[in-house]
C-alpha cells in the first residue's frame, strides 16, 4: 500500500475560532480502496475537519492534497468536482421532490429547450437504487420515505459521479441492521473500485467490521492512527478519551431527600421509549449519551414541550400531566435549555429583564411593571450566583458565556423550582467558568434542588453527578452510581453495548 499515492491527504490543518483551537495541526490521509475511520468524542473536531475539507471553513494553516495536487476548497460543489463526496448525517434533501430529482439535484440531465430528460434520469436513478437494493423507486417522493430510506437517498448521491473519496458521517445512525448490511456492501463495492472512504462513526462494532485503519482526534488534536486488525476497542477508547482529562468523580454526597420526580415507562413516538428513572431532592442525575440519543427530548417532554405517547410522570409521588411550559413552571420544573443564546435568553434585552422574564406578569404595580421589585430580584441572584456584570442595564448579549448561563440559571431559581433540568450547561463556555458552573450545580443540589444534568462531555457528567444514566438510541442502557462508573463502561454503554454480566 505504501507504493500508492493517497487519494486524499490533509496536512497540518489548523483552524481556530475565537477562544478555541478547534483543529490543532491535524494530518490525515486516505488511500484509494481503503476505509479509514475517523473517531473522537463529541466536540473532538471531526465535524470541523470535514467542514474544512468541504470548503465550508477555510483552514488557518495547512493544506488539502487530492491525488498529490494541492487544492483550495471553496465550496461543497468544488469538493464534488474534485471527486470528494459527502454523505451528511443531517439530511439535505428537498422533501417535495422525487428520489431521482434529489439524487441528481443541480445536475438534472437535459434535453433541448432545457427540458428534463426524465427517461435518462429515471433509468440512471433506478440503476443506482438497484445497487443499493432499496424498496422504493426513482419516482417516489422523498417526503414519503422513512428517515432510514432518506438516508439511503443521501448515500445514493455518492454513486452518481466517479468519486475519488467519499466521506460518510455517521451513515448508520438511522439505519436498520438489514440496511446496514446493504450499506457495507456498497462501501465494499466502492472500495474495490479504488475509492478512498472516510468513515465517521461512534459505533465500535461497525468500525472493526469494515475499516482498515482508525485515526483518532481528541480536543482538536490528532492522537494517532491504528491499523484496525492489530488493535482492539480498549486501545481505541483509550486514545479517544485520553488520560489528561480530569475524570475525577463526584465524591461529595449529600443527604438525599424524598423522590421529587419519577418517570415510569415514558415514551414519545420514535424519539425515546421505555424511559424510567427517578430523581431525589439533593441529587444530581447526569444523562450521558451521543447526540440524538433522546436526552434533550426527555427534558423537553418533562418541560411540557412535547406530548408523551405513553408512560407516567410523578411529581412528589403524584401522577401529573404537563401540558405546557407554563404548566411545568407552575409545578416547579425549570429547564435551562441546550441552546443558551437561541432558547434561553433574549440577547437584546438587559440582564434584569431576562432574569424576570417568566414572572414579569406578576411583578406589577398597578398597571405598570414594578421596576423596583425586578431590580431586587436581579440583585439577589447576582449576589447569590456571583454574576459579574457592570449592572442590570447591561445587555445580556455582551456578557461572557459563563455569566449568560448564570443569568439563565438565576432566572429559573427565582421561580423557586423543585426540579432543575440543565441541558449542556457548559457548552461554549471557557474552562475556568466551567468549573464554576459545576460547583454551582453541586451547591444547588446541596440546597435541596433535584437536578438533572444532560451533557455530552464525559468529564462533566462524571464530575457533577451522583448517578449517571447512559442512553443509546432513545433507551436507557444502564444507570451507574458515581462509584461504579468508569470511562470504559460508560463509553460502552452509550455505544449500545450491553454488558453480558453486569458487575
Amino acid at each position, binding site marked *: 500500500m505504501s507504493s500508492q499515492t493517497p487519494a486524499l491527504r490533509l496536512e497540518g490543518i489548523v483552524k481556530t475560532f475565537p477562544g478555541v483551537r478547534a483543529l490543532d495541526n491535524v494530518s490525515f490521509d486516505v488511500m484509494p480502496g481503503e476505509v479509514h475511520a475517523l473517531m473522537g468524542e463529541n466536540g473532538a473536531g471531526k465535524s470541523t475537519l470535514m467542514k474544512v475539507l468541504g470548503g465550508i471553513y477555510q483552514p488557518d494553516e495547512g493544506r488539502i492534497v487530492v491525488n498529490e495536487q494541492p487544492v483550495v476548497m471553496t465550496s*461543497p*460543489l468544488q469538493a*464534488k468536482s474534485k471527486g470528494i463526496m459527502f454523505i451528511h448525517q443531517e439530511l*439535505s*434533501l*428537498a*422533501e*417535495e*421532490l422525487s428520489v431521482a*430529482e434529489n439524487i441528481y*439535484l*443541480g*445536475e*438534472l440531465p*437535459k434535453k433541448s*429547450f*432545457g*427540458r*428534463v430528460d426524465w427517461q435518462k434520469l429515471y433509468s440512471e436513478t433506478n440503476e443506482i437504487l438497484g445497487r443499493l437494493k432499496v424498496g422504493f423507486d426513482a419516482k417516489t417522493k422523498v417526503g*414519503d420515505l422513512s428517515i432510514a430510506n432518506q438516508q439511503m437517498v443521501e448515500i445514493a448521491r455518492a454513486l452518481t459521479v466517479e468519486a475519488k473519496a467519499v466521506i460518510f458521517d455517521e451513515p448508520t445512525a438511522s439505519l436498520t441492521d438489514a440496511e446496514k448490511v446493504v450499506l457495507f456492501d456498497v462501501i465494499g463495492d466502492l472500495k474495490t473500485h479504488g475509492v478512498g472512504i472516510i468513515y465517521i462513526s461512534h459505533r465500535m462494532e461497525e468500525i472493526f467490521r469494515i475499516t482498515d485503519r482508525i485515526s483518532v482526534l481528541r480536543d482538536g488534536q490528532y492522537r494517532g492512527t491504528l491499523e484496525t486488525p492489530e488493535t482492539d476497542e480498549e486501545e481505541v477508547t483509550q486514545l479517544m478519551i485520553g488520560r489528561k482529562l480530569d475524570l475525577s468523580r463526584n465524591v461529595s454526597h449529600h443527604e438525599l431527600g424524598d423522590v421529587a420526580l419519577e418517570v415510569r415507562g415514558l415514551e*414519545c*413516538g*420514535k*424519539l425515546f421509549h421505555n424511559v424510567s428513572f427517578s430523581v431525589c431532592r439533593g441529587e444530581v442525575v447526569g444523562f450521558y449519551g451521543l447526540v440524538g440519543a433522546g436526552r434533550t427530548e426527555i427534558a*423537553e417532554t418533562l418541560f*411540557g*414541550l*412535547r*406530548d408523551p*405517547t405513553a408512560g407516567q410522570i410523578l411529581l412528589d409521588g403524584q401522577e401529573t400531566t404537563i401540558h*405546557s411550559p407554563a404548566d411545568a413552571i407552575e409545578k416547579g420544573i425549570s429547564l435551562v435549555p441546550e441552546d443558551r443564546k437561541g432558547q434561553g435568553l433574549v440577547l437584546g434585552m438587559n440582564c434584569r429583564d431576562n432574569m424576570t422574564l417568566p414572572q414579569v406578569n406578576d411583578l406589577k404595580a398597578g398597571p405598570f411593571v414594578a421596576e423596583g421589585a425586578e431590580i431586587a430580584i436581579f440583585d439577589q441572584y447576582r449576589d447569590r450566583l456571583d454574576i459579574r456584570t457592570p449592572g442590570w442595564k447591561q445587555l445580556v448579549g455582551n456578557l461572557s458565556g459563563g455569566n449568560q448561563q448564570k443569568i439563565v440559571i438565576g432566572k429559573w431559581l427565582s421561580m423557586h423550582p423543585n426540579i432543575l433540568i440543565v441541558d449542556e450547561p457548559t457548552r461554549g463556555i471557557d474552562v475556568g467558568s466551567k468549573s464554576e458552573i459545576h460547583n454551582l450545580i453541586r451547591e444547588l443540589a446541596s440546597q435541596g434542588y433535584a437536578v438533572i444534568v444532560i451533557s455530552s462531555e464525559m468529564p462533566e457528567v462524571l464530575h457533577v453527578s451522583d448517578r449517571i444514566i447512559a442512553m443509546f438510541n432513545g433507551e436507557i442502557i444502564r444507570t451507574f452510581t458515581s462509584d461504579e462508573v468508569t470511562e470504559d463502561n460508560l463509553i460502552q454503554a452509550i455505544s449500545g453495548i450491553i454488558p453480558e454480566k453486569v458487575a
Partner: protein
Amino acid sequence: MEPGTLSTFLKRGAIWGFIVVELLFFSIAGEYLSLSNKAFMDLDNMLLLFKQSAPIGIIAIGMTIIMVNGNIDLSVGATFALSAIVLLNSMTWPVFAGLGDGVIPIAWALALVTGILLGALNGLIVWKTGVDAFIVTLGSMLGYRGLVFMYNGEQPTSHLNWTLVDFAEAQFMGLHTATWFLLVVTAVIWFVMNRTVHGRNAYAIGDNRTAAINAGIRVGPHMMINFMIIGFLASLSAVVFYSESGSVNPNDGELYELWVITAVVLGGTKLTGGAGSVLSTLGGVLAIQLLRKGLGHIGADTETVNLVIGLILIAVLFLDRQLNLKGREALRI
C-alpha cells in the same frame, strides 16, 4: 388506505372540489335569490367569468413560480399599471405616427419590455443584496407606483385603438382573447414548472435552499429569471386588459398583488415555498372569481364579497395546517 393519502388527495383536488361546491351552491341559491332570471351556469356567464379572471389569473400563474421559490412579489400591481401606461401612451408618440396599426406590435413590445425590466430590477436587488424579496418588492411596489404618478399625475392615460379593441373583444372558438391568453400562459408555465430543469430547480430551492446551493444550483440568477417572468406576465396582463379598455388610471392595479397572492395560496402553494401547482393556482383564480360573481348574482354587495373571501381564505389555511401537522411527537412551540 395509507396514512397521508387522504390529506394528499384533499390538498391536490381540494380547489376543484371547492369550485364544484360553489357552482352548485350558486346555481341552486340563484334560483331563489337572484333578481335576474338567467341561470348562473349560463354559457355566456361562464365565458365572461373566464375573461374576467384573466388579468389576475395571468399574474397569479407567475406568482406561483415566485412563491414556489420561497419568494413573494408585491410590486406586480404597480408593474401592471406602469406597463399599461407605456402601452397606451406609446401609441400616441409622434415617432410612430406614420405606422398606422403597425404601432400595435411596437406598443405591445415596449409594454412587455417594461415589465421584464422592472422584474429584472427586483430580481437583481434580491440576488445581489440578499435582502428578503418581501422587503425589496414592498419598496419597488411604492417606487413603481411613484413612477406611474410621475408619468401623468392624477390624470388617466387614454388611447383607444379600434383595431386593438376588436382584437381584444374577439372570440375564437367561443373563448375571448383574454381567456386564450390565460390558458396559453397556464400551459406554458405548467410546462416550465413540470418539464424543465429550471422549473424543477425552482421547487428544490424553495424546499431546501441549503441543499440546492450545495448541489451547485445558482440560486441568485435563478431567482432573477423568475422575477423577470413575473414582470413579463404582469405586463402581459396589462396588455391584454388595456387593449380593450383603452384608459388607465394611476390607481389601477392597486391591491392586485393581494388578490394574486390570495388566489395562489387558495390554490395550495406553500407560503414557505417548495410546493405548489400552476393548475391549482388557476383553480384558485377561478374560485375567487366565481365567488365574486356568484355572490353578486344572489344580490350581495362588494363588501360582503370581500368579507366572505377573507373568511374562506383563513378557513382554507387553517385546514391546510391541520392536514400538515406532524403528529403527536412534534415539539410544541
